[in-house]
């Protein structure tokens, strides 16, 4: 049966990349919509929630588009994929912009990487920009066909620190070991960009489209 996959557009980030990658793996039988309409999000079979930029701007844009509730309902009820800021804004609060309240669906905070972290005697550059390994903490349908420690593309200065470690589905080392993926019953959210992570990223998106939580 054709599924409608909705990519939430609230003016933050490179939605074209996300929707193109999903169209690429979805093929002809699924419909992909990019929308800022709560009604269309409510009617979707599955929802992708991307995001880029600063936490405060993302929260402001969500409010402006009256999307908070639609996002929260979808994140509780539908197969839901958060990407980058789409992971971070699900948490309670962020250190970014001198402290920012977030959607508060997932207990935990968003923290900045500490300054002057060293790797091999050299200072790590922030943002973390590039391909890093994701350690799959546990099995998950979205990891199907993706080997342990596969590299994905990251661009970020902040990371999530969930209160409940049982929701951690992936970790990554960048000076410290941080949570790069969380998963609850129907939700999977990544700090990396699957839409920019070549074959491994497309595999993950394809797994999401076929996921029946």
């Amino acid at each position: 049966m054709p599924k409608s996959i909705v990519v939430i557009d609230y003016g933050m980030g490179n939605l074209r990349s996300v929707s193109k990658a999903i169209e690429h793996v979805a093929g002809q039988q699924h419909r992909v919509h990019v929308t800022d309409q709560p009604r269309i999000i409510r009617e979707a079979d599955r929802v992708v929630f991307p995001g880029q930029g600063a936490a405060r701007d993302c929260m402001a844009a969500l409010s402006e588009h009256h999307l908070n509730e639609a996002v929260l309902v979808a994140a509780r009820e539908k197969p839901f994929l958060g990407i980058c800021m789409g992971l971070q804004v699900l948490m309670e609060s962020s250190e970014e912009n001198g402290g920012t309240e977030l959607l508060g669906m997932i207990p935990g905070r968003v923290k900045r990487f500490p300054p002057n972290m060293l790797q091999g005697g050299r200072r790590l550059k922030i943002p973390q920009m590039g391909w890093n390994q994701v350690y799959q903490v546990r099995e998950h349908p979205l990891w199907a066909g993706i080997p342990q420690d596969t590299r994905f593309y990251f661009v970020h200065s902040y990371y999530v620190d969930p209160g409940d470690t049982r929701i951690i589905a992936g970790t990554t080392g960048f000076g410290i070991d941080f949570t790069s993926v969380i998963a609850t019953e129907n939700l999977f959210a990544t700090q990396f960009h699957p839409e920019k992570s070549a074959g491994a990223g497309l595999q993950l998106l394809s797994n999401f489209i076929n996921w029946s939580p």
Partner: protein
Amino acid sequence: MLARRIIPCLDVDGGRVVKGVRFVDIRDAGDPVEVARRYNEEGADEITFLDITASSDDRDTIIHVVEQVAAQVFIPLTVGGGIRTCEDIRRMLNAGADKVAINTAAISNPEFVLEATRRFGSQCIVVAIDAKQVSGEGEFPRWEIFTHGGRKPTGLDAVAWAQQMVEYGAGEILLTSMDRDGTKIGFDLALTRAISQAVSVPVIASGGVGNLQHLVDGVQEGEADAVLAASIFHFAEYSIGEAKRYMAEHGVEVRLT
């Protein structure tokens, strides 16, 4: 551990790849989509397009190039050349670019970088710096920013300029040595190291790559976070895969595919 990135750079003029890409088994070596797809298959970590279109009438062609590539190649894409306004940036990002590289416009109006990073976020704003050594033999090394392909001095100190651009929000520095560009004798390692140590954001080394050891040197001695090269890949002297294997064998963390 985060991998060092290898970035092939394509010069695009009027929508066509120039400076002759020479893959024997590619149908149309001037087609940016075919070339980008090939680099992606070889394991490129990103692709940079430099739009060198001289005529402003043809400027829109790069938008179509980016759209077509972004629909088929799912790795980060950076576009440089002719980025002068926030509207230019918006159009590139909407077309599917992940980052834009700002060069001359940053020099004529540094506030533009501030405005661009505030509006679009640091993660998509790369400041491109073309530097040339201006100190003499035996003097403490100094580099200045040059424009117009290295012909026009600006008087700006390269290290101070890089730091200012990062203060203004640049998420990355694309550093080209105009002394080395096209020479194939390797990166200016002292310049690369000086800039990399002076800023908190990633630095992409560019200009001078002639063999695979140069890439290793750029990372290990130049302390570059990423290395960019054009001709060694275009003329299929080395594939990206060969470059990565060589770097891995010499102790550089890379993404092997």
